[in-house]
C-alpha cells in the first residue's frame, strides 16, 4: 500500500469530476482523479447526449473521453480505485482506497449516483445474465424476445422504448397505477405496440438458473401472486448518491445527498461535494460540469488563501 501525495484529490470521474479536474489542472495544482468504474459515470452508458450546449448530439462515452483527454492534456492524473473512506489528518485529508492511500490538501467529491436495486432473490446472481440496469448496453441481446422493464419514471420509459428496437414484447411492471414519467415519454410508451403495462405490481423474485427465465409477481391491489416468462429484466427504480464514505463526516439529507454551500463547500475546510452527490443537483451533464468547475475554483481559493500558502 503506497501513500501518494497530491494537492487536490477528486473522487469520481463523471462530468462533475472531469470538469473539476480540468479546472484544478489548469490552476497548476497537482491533482488526481479516482474512478471506481468507467470514466463518464452515468453518461458513459448514455447513447446520445443532446442537451450539452454547443454539442448538438454526441455519444455519452465519446463526450466523457473528450472531457478526459482535455483535462489530461493539462496534467490531470487518473487512477482506477474505489474510495473506501475519507479522514481528516491535521490540516490534510486522507483518502483511502482498496489499493493505496492518497493525501491531499483539498478533496472534491463528485462520486455521483448509482442505480437502485430491487433487492429480491435472483437479482444479484443473474446480473449480466438477463438482469440489467442499462438497456442501451444490453438490449441487443434480447432480439425477438419478451423482456420486463421495472419502474414507471423517465428512465424506465426511455430505456423501455429503446428496448423495443430489439425485443418483440416489453412488459412494464410498475408498483403504482400510473406512470411518473414525463408526458412525452408516456405518450410514446402508450403508442408503442410492443409495450404493455402491468399495474400495481412488484417483482418478488427473478427466476432462472444460468440466465433469466421469468419473474415472480405480487399484485398489491388484489394480493394475487403470479409468474411471467421473460428472458430479461431491466430495472429502473431510481438512484442513490454514492456518499456512503461521507457518513458521519458531513451532514447528509434523508436521501444521502450532501448539504453544501453555493460554492460546493461542506462544513469542513477543504472538503467539497459537487454534482449528483450533493443536495438539489439538477442532475444534468451541464449542471454537473458547472458544479465541478465551481468546486475546483473554490478549492483553488482555499489553497491560495485559507490554507495559508
Amino acid at each position, binding site marked *: 500500500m503506497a501513500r501518494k501525495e497530491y494537492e487536490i484529490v477528486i473522487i469520481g470521474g463523471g462530468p462533475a469530476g472531469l470538469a473539476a479536474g480540468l479546472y484544478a489542472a489548469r490552476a497548476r495544482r497537482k491533482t488526481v482523479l479516482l474512478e471506481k468504474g*468507467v*470514466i*463518464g459515470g452515468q453518461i458513459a452508458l448514455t447513447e446520445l447526449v443532446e442537451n450539452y450546449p454547443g454539442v448538438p448530439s454526441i455519444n455519452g*462515452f465519446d463526450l466523457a473521453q473528450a472531457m478526459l483527454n482535455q483535462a489530461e492534456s493539462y496534467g490531470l492524473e487518473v487512477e482506477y480505485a474505489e474510495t473506501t473512506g475519507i479522514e481528516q489528518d491535521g490540516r490534510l485529508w486522507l483518502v483511502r482506497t482498496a489499493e493505496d492511500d492518497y493525501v491531499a490538501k483539498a478533496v472534491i467529491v463528485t462520486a455521483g449516483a448509482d442505480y437502485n436495486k430491487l433487492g429480491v432473490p435472483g437479482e444479484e446472481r443473474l*446480473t*449480466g445474465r438477463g438482469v*440489467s440496469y442499462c438497456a442501451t*448496453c444490453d438490449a*441487443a441481446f434480447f432480439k425477438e424476445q419478451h423482456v420486463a422493464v421495472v419502474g414507471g419514471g423517465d428512465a424506465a420509459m426511455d430505456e423501455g422504448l429503446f428496448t423495443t428496437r430489439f425485443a418483440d414484447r416489453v412488459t412494464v411492471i410498475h408498483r403504482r397505477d400510473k406512470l411518473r414519467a414525463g408526458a412525452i415519454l408516456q405518450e410514446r410508451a402508450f403508442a408503442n405496440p410492443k409495450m404493455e403495462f402491468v399495474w400495481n405490481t412488484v417483482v418478488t423474485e427473478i427466476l432462472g438458473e444460468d440466465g*433469466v427465465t421469468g419473474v415472480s409477481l405480487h399484485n398489491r391491489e388484489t394480493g394475487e401472486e403470479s409468474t411471467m416468462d421473460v428472458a430479461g429484466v431491466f430495472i429502473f427504480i431510481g438512484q442513490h448518491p454514492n456518499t456512503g464514505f461521507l457518513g458521519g463526516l458531513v451532514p447528509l439529507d434523508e436521501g444521502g445527498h450532501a448539504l453544501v454551500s453555493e460554492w460546493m463547500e461542506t462544513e469542513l475546510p477543504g472538503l467539497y461535494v459537487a454534482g449528483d452527490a450533493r443536495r438539489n443537483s439538477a442532475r444534468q451533464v451541464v449542471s454537473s460540469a458547472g458544479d465541478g468547475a465551481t468546486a475546483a475554483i473554490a478549492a483553488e481559493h482555499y489553497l491560495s488563501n485559507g490554507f495559508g500558502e
Partner: protein
Amino acid sequence: MAKPAEVTDATFDEEVLKSGEPVLVDFWAPWCGPCRMVAPLVEELAGEYDGKVKFVKLNTDDNMQTAARYGIRSIPTLLMFKGGEPIDQVIGFRPKGDLKRTIEKALA
C-alpha cells in the same frame, strides 16, 4: 506484443476450446462504450501474460451464435476458458487489478 486476435463463430472451437493454454475471451461490440475501456486493459494483460494465457476477442454483433451459447446478455463480458470449459467470468468494466486476479486464479 501479442495483440488479442479476433475469433468468430467459425473459429471459436479451434482457437478457444482446443487451446492448450487458458484463454481469456473478450466479448465486445462496437457500440458498447465500456467495451472500449476494457480493450486497452486486455491488450496490456496480453503483453504481461504472453506465453501463459491466450487472449482473444469476439464481436457479439457478428457472432451471435457463440454469444448465445455462453449466455452472454451483457457486455463487456470476459470469460476465462481452461480445457475447453468456461471457469470464470468478469461482467462489466472492472479495474485491471480485478482482471489480473481472475487470470491468476486460472493459472493457480
